[in-house]
């Protein structure tokens, strides 16, 4: 493989992406796959809102509605929000810390393909007898009673994609611990790197309980085990605990990187150092830690008793303190700054009030006796959409605009970006603000319809209008991407002009080996420091130019994941008496996976070197 630029055919490009271990290309893969699932989840959301636009609507049937809400939640959390965050983590974090790549490029690729095949498997349930229908929480009594294969698709699909997520999390932990450039101490890491680090630690501890729960579920449904079957000594509440011991930290796995992205955006477009950097770091860690202490607040109405409820209520309220610290630090970062309202900054400014609104309703629900009223009503639906859409989705859209020039060397259209924001933001509040009141007025969540004249008709209609505005926003974003791609104007290095961190110091397009020489980090916001001191290059180097050791591309991660995908079909249909082919398929799938792993273990793949002479002649730029 050579570093010299050459034009590749379409097939070769596809093959390159199927086999790539480059974090920048894997970021693009995550972005494409995540967007695909985001659109699917969005269509499901629209179906929900159309069905609920008026009382006694029969746009979708009762059973189908339950499948739609289940898949909407599962898709958005596991297959859209997580991978889209991974896209930006992959694109930015290695560059932010001045690394050559992530610590385990092969695993990075494996993590992606596992996620993708798991997600595809789950979504194929639509065409193979019905999607899961027990809610994204899949509470045990209902999920065990579910007659179709939907729940099996859910359990097996999430098991596969969850393995991918766990791998990705471990990879980022190791990368951030080991691969930082000289001088980049922990307390000089950009906030996005910090939040990625803490979120990865949460993944490491939160996903195993989910894995265990899903295995119990699989055993119960496929091999007649009795972990959750109360008639045979099992207990359904165990599933609720396992799910929420994972599920609550999952919220912070998603929202912490969103906080990180906005921290970068606020500092950049205020031309100001992040206010209270060390307390921001402290708050991030504290939120991560407390995030494991509060899962039972999802279960206040389960009947755990007053002592458990009181303890978890107070612990939950405690999380408001570090979160509040963050909000005020953001405000003070902007205070006294020099604000340029670009599209990412606009999203940031929209994020603050939205997220505060979502946060305060969280505190209200932390109050256990009040939660008896709010739980499983539309109030909670409004609350978590304020946090997830108002926090995470706004962050993802902001990051898409902010990091687009880093990933693709092109700027998304700013005017169109702002129009997108207006539609999405207005639509978002229109959809969800009013749902708080629907909940208070007694409307339970997850209802496929409602009787008229209960005082809910108008608000539901308004909510549906909001959903359409949001959809217009998303469509405009896609249009923006297409227009930008057709135009193809290069953005160049430091396109926002106010970049502060290392990822903006690298020449555009980013060379496939990242930094030619590893940079030396002299403080927080390295690039800013260099710029302020008049360093044209924007970097001080820690080493002379020397040979770079690079990993080879590999098709093995794809094959390992594909094997599990095949095996999952065998496992799923094995319970059906009339499908004798299922066992051979199960074995064949596992054989593909294990053979691929054996090949990986036995074949020496030492990578290759880019020689010093080649690097000397190169000015930068991807192939």
């Amino acid at each position: 493989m050579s570093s010299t630029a050459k034009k590749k055919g379409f097939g070769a490009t596809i093959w390159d992406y199927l086999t790539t271990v480059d974090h920048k290309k894997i970021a693009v893969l995550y972005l494409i796959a995540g967007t695909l699932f985001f659109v699917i989840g969005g269509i499901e959301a629209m179906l929900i809102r159309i069905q609920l636009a008026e009382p006694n609507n029969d746009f979708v049937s009762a059973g189908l509605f339950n499948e739609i809400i289940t898949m909407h939640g599962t898709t958005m959390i596991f297959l859209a929000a997580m991978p889209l965050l991974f896209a930006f983590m992959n694109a930015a974090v290695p560059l932010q810390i001045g690394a050559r790549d992530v610590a385990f490029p092969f695993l990075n690729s494996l993590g992606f393909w596992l996620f993708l095949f798991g997600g595809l498997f789950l979504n194929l349930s639509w065409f193979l007898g019905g999607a899961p229908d027990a809610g994204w929480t899949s509470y045990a009594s209902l999920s065990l009673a579910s007659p179709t294969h939907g729940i099996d698709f859910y359990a097996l699909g999430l098991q596969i994609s969850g393995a991918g997520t766990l791998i990705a999390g471990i990879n980022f932990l190791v990368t951030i611990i080991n691969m930082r450039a000289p001088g980049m101490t922990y307390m000089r890491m950009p906030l996005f790197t910090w939040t990625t680090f803490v979120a990865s630690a949460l993944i490491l501890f939160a996903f195993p309980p989910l894995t265990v729960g899903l295995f119990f579920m699989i055993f119960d449904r496929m091999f007649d085990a009795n972990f959750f079957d109360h008639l045979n000594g099992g207990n359904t509440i165990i599933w609720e605990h396992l799910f929420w011991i994972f599920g609550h930290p999952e919220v912070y796995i998603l929202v912490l990187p969103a906080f990180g992205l906005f921290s970068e955006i606020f500092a950049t477009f205020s031309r100001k150092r992040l206010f209270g950097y060390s307390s921001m770091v402290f708050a991030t860690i504290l939120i991560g830690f407390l995030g494991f202490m509060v899962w039972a607040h999802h279960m206040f109405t389960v009947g755990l008793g007053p002592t458990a409820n009181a303890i978890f209520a107070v612990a939950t309220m405690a999380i408001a303190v570090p979160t509040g610290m963050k909000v005020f630090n953001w405000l003070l970062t902007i205070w006294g700054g020099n604000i340029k309202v670009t599209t990412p900054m606009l999203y940031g400014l929209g994020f603050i009030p939205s997220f505060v609104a979502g946060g305060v309703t969280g505190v209200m629900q932390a109050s256990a006796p009040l939660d008896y009223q709010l739980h499983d009503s539309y109030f909670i639906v409004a609350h978590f959409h304020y946090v997830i859409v108002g926090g995470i989705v706004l962050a993802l859209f902001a990051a898409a605009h902010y990091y687009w020039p880093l990933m693709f060397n092109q700027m998304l259209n700013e005017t169109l970006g702002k129009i997108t924001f207006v539609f999405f933001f207005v639509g978002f509040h229109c959809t969800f603000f009013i749902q708080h009141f629907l909940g208070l007025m007694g409307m339970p969540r997850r209802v496929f319809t409602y009787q008229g004249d209960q005082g809910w008709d108008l608000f539901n209609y308004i909510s549906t209008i909001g959903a359409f505005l949001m959809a217009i926003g998303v469509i405009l974003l896609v249009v923006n991407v297409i227009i930008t791609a057709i135009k193809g104007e290069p953005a160049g290095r430091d396109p926002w002009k106010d970049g502060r961190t290392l990822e903006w110091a690298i020449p555009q397009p980013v060379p496939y080996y990242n930094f030619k020489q590893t940079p030396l980090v002299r403080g927080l916001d390295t690039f800013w420091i260099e710029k302020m001191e008049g360093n044209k290059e924007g970097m001080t180097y820690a080493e002379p130019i020397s040979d770079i050791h690079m990993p080879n591309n590999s098709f093995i991660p794809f094959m390992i994941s594909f094997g599990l995908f095949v095996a999952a079909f065998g496992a799923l249909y094995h319970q059906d008496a009339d499908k004798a082919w299922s066992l051979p398929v199960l074995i064949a799938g596992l054989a593909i996976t294990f053979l691929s792993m054996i090949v990986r273990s036995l074949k020496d793949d030492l990578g290759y070197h880019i020689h010093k002479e080649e690097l000397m002649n190169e000015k930068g730029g991807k192939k």
Partner: protein
Amino acid sequence: MKGLKKWRLFGLLAALTIFLSGCGEEYLSTLTPGGTVAKEQYKLLLLTSVIMLLVIIVVVIIYVLVIVKFRRKKVGENTIPKQVEGSHILEIIWTAIPIVLLLIIAVPTVSLTYELADTKAMEAKDENGNATAVTVNVTAKLYWWEFEYPEQGIITAQELVVPTGEKVYFNLKAADVKHSFWIPAIGGKLDTNVDNINTFYLTFDKESDSLKDGVFYGKCAELCGPSHALMDFKVKTLSKDNFDTWVKNMQATKGKKADKNSTDLGEQVFANSCISCHAVSGEGTAAIYPNLATFGDRNRVAGFIEHSEEGIKDWIKNSQKLKPGNLMPVEKDLNKGKEFTDEELDALAAYLMGLSVEK
């Protein structure tokens, strides 16, 4: 100054109360509490809302100031702001004040949590060994509710009848999958688990005959299958005297049966097609299918359909379409493989409407 602040807080609270009580229907909304439990929870809602509004106001003030004052147009294209590291004093302030605010919420939260879970009194007995409090055993089933009064030896379904002005205790359980028992206007919900019995109490302050439909609305609040949305029940609250009369009338239906040889065609049809699942005597203990002793007194058919002979006929003909996944057999299975004649259906509906302990 302090007095002024108190007034402001009071004003905010009053404004909020007026605003919120404009929302929702009296028989259904948590914002128009009709019982002590809901009232306590509503007070907590007001308290937290006011505190949270204060937080929002502070954030919004800083936020607006920031946007107004520090935009590039105002500050100048090339100005480089001072790179401030942070401020210890500010950090302490915005850590300490939220902690105080949270403590203000935490104290009533914890005390109310214990208060609402206190069901010791349901065991209390008077000198004759009778329970002093009314206890109802609630069993949630796909997709209907059974209410058993163990002390009184009576049972009913779909429509809970309770006395006003005293604590009524509930034992909650699910028979098939998990459900959740919620009467929004009366108090927060509690899950009906399949694994164990949950207990709590509610207080009903108002007699329900003044309400629009003469009943409070109850809901299933936990996803339980296709017809989760239709798993409604109704609550009739009676004064203590009227409740006692109702109990006596219920007990008096002991031994009531539908007779195959009755002169009433409706009763004949019921005896041939319905009696194997549905009892018409309100006396007894938990059954597998809904008790119909009070059917004529109810407010809805199957929890949500208009309570009329037309509604009953519609339900018998189309129960699977109306409430997908329910366990009511289809018409032909009820009537030995044939559909009911119109005459039979009319008579059956009339018979069912006549099942009453109140008329």
